[in-house]
């Protein structure tokens, strides 16, 4: 029996226990393959939905299609899968930082289905975030299957996201960079290698199944100094578009939270609104990759007015879809909005400065995409590499970097946090590796408690107390009720120091007269960061821990420093 299940415990082999890099790389390949498959699966089902619904698009009631899709996806997520709406990436990040990347198995397919319903029916959202969620859940599930520990599981969750991004965009480098910059938040050698391998596996499986195609093939851009100068302006436009989209999404979400109607009704209202919008501006529907394609090729019809209108309409539609409970990500909408912004900006320049030798508008659409991704996600590298890989145009590298970096910086002034991190940060749940909050979040009260305190009874005379003092090593003496064992208060050495040489008081003062009967106490499940805050506020160095009205020990800053250093050491060291 044991022999047959042995292969499920690879981490127990002494070879892998010492150095698990090979193990992680080989399991990373499996994870990458599966998440690449998930990406291909979502892609196929989106195409299937689009083709199936194509002949209905021109009917008068077609605006109800996004409503039905959003409603179905909302009902599916909420009632059948019992998961929250939204794109899921904050959940992945939180799980990585708090629970070692523990995700539910059902997350590996739930978002795929719900987002294909939302997007396939015309909702304005992207398939990337759902696929990232699936990839992460696949990584987590496979890690659990092999009984790996938290650190290894986190790496595999990273492998899953990298494989998913690599698979859906056919962009392995972007998968790697996105995972490092957004999901894990640390660049460590032990992580990079398995994740890179998984990204390759994810990209390869999608190439095998769908062919090695560049999503928005483009070439022949001749960048001149004027373009570099113009890209500065584009960066600022992209930054403001990012801010607009971030605020729009949040505002819309805020509005929808206030309305007390079932989630699926909200989702269908949002969907219907998007459908109506789609009547006038058909570009806003779906993931919108078709219009990006047109813009980059430079064959987008419509003047500056149409482009600007589409730009705002897409922001509005995306806010409606995602804010009102549809399921999907913001990656694809960002790309669409970015390319509209780039196009509009280019046309504005061409209109304002006729005769200036600018590169063609496709290049600006491309730069706009990078600017939006970098701004919204606060991830310049992800923006640069994504655009580089999905357009395969290396010649735009210089303006690409300029736009990404400046857009990130300008957006940062107004929206200091990435769209994915904002909610987490507001809840104090963004715990990046190696930071103070992460170290404190990991240490539990039980780990820093000191139990070698001598308890005293309230009826004890000062003389007896001083006799006890001789044999004690601590400065705090908890007072307990001798019968019930209840915690009554605490005597601090500092409280009695002035009486030590006053022999008259020895037999006249009882412990209960000198104890502090209302000290601030700590409970087992308290957060260490909060405890420290209380200590700082009250300028205390120790606090008693009380559980069920009984004294169990002390928490002191001195011991905490020791534990804190150990924890920081252990968390920041690379592997073993």
């Amino acid at each position, binding site marked *: 029996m044991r022999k047959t299940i042995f292969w499920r415990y690879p981490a127990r082999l002494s070879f892998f226990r010492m150095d698990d890099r090979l193990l992680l790389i080989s399991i990373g390949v499996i994870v990458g393959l599966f998440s690449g498959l998930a990406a291909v699966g979502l892609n196929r089902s989106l195409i299937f939905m689009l083709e199936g619904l194509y002949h209905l698009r021109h009917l008068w009631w077609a605006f109800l299609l996004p409503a039905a899709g959003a409603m179905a996806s909302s009902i599916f997520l909420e009632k059948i899968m019992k998961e929250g709406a939204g794109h899921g990436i904050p959940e992945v990040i939180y799980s990585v930082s708090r629970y070692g990347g523990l995700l539910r198995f059902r997350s590996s397919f739930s978002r795929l289905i719900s987002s294909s319903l939302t997007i396939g029916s015309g909702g304005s959202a992207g398939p990337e975030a759902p696929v990232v969620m699936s990839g992460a859940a696949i990584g987590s599930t496979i890690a659990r299957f092999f009984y790996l520990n938290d650190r290894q599981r986190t790496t595999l969750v990273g492998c899953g996201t990298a494989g998913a991004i690599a698979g859906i965009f056919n962009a392995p480098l972007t998968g790697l960079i996105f995972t490092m910059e957004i999901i894990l938040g640390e660049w460590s050698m032990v992580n990079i290698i398995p994740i890179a391998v998984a990204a390759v596996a994810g990209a390869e499986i999608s190439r095998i199944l769908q062919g090695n195609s560049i999503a928005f093939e483009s070439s022949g851009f001749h960048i001149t100094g004027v373009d570099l100068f113009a890209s500065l302006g584009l960066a600022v436009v992209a930054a403001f578009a990012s801010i607009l989209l971030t605020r729009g999404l949040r505002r819309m979400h805020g509005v929808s939270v206030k309305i007390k109607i079932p989630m699926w009704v909200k989702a269908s209202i949002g969907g219907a609104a998007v459908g109506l919008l789609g009547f006038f501006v058909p570009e806003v529907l779906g993931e919108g990759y078709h219009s990006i394609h047109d813009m980059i090729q430079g064959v987008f019809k419509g003047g500056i007015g149409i482009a600007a209108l589409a730009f705002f309409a897409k922001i509005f539609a995306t806010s409606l879809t995602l804010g009102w409970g549809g399921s999907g990500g913001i990656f694809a909408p960002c790309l669409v909005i970015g390319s509209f912004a780039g196009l509009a900006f280019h046309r504005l320049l061409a209109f304002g400065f006729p005769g200036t030798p600018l590169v063609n508008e496709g290049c600006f659409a491309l730069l706009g995409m990078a600017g939006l991704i970098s701004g919204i996600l606060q991830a310049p590298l992800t923006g640069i590499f994504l655009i580089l890989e999905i357009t395969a145009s290396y010649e735009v590298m210089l303006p690409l970097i300029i736009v990404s970096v400046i857009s990130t910086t300008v957006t940062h002034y107004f929206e200091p946090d990435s769209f994915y991190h904002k909610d987490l940060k507001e809840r104090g749940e963004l715990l990046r590796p190696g930071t103070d909050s992460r170290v404190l979040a990991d240490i*539990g009260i039980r780990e820093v408690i000191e139990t070698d305190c001598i308890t005293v009874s309230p009826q004890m005379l000062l003389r007896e107390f001083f006799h006890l003092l001789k044999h004690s090593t601590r400065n705090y003496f908890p007072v307990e009720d001798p019968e019930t064992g209840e915690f009554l208060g605490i005597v601090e050495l500092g409280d009695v120091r002035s009486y030590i040489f006053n022999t008259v008081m020895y037999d006249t003062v009882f412990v209960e007269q000198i104890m502090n009967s209302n000290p601030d106490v700590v409970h087992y499940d308290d957060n260490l960061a909060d405890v420290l805050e209380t200590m700082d506020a009250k300028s205390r160095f120790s606090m008693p821990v009380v559980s069920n009205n009984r004294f169990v020990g002390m928490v002191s800053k001195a011991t905490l420093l020791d534990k804190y250093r150990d924890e920081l050491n252990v968390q920041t*060291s690379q592997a073993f």
Partner: protein
Amino acid sequence: MKLTIEEIARRLDLNLETLDRWIRQGRIPVTKKGNEGVFNEPELKRWARSHRRSYRMSPRSDKNEIQQGGCVLTSAMERGGVFEGVQGGDKPSVLKNCVALVPDLPLEFQAPLYNQLLEREALISTGVGRGVAIPHPRNPLDQGISSPVVGTFFLDQPVDYEAIDDQPVFVLFLILSPTVQGHLTLLSRLSYCLRDGTFVSFLKKIPGREAFLARVKKMEKNIDGKEK
């Protein structure tokens, strides 16, 4: 290698909860199997070194045992030995002979120890009166001995020791300890015994090793009982 989680926590001097969490999080090269941790010993030692921890090999450390258990003085005296008829006409020669008799003291540490004892005597004599002297070095011995030792030396003939009561000394207790704490404990216990007049007159009769140690043990048990 396989040990219980509690044992590993003890060896690494880690909190049990912390160790448990570190194993779960994969921050320490130990895997868990039921309540047992599986690890490779050299690997774990290397890990401990690089993480500011020490890995204790032996199941129990000796030092703590001596300090915690009772009868500290008696066991130190047992290790130090009881010698009768120690030769010497004056203080330096007596001390020199005593140092040579200390059991298990490597030869190269004898001369430094002798010099340290003379230095100490130059400050103020260790003759505490009633014919008893307790020579000891000023600083704890960090080399040569691993645990506290008290050597008992009955002299062949009493010598002038410049004692506080000017009486010639007939017995020496040489106190050697690797720690200050151990030294103070031994000193306080020995002086407690010497305060007892009957004990000093018992010493004057130069009892045999067994009788002497039995008497000290009895008195020390008395002290242990009081402390508790």
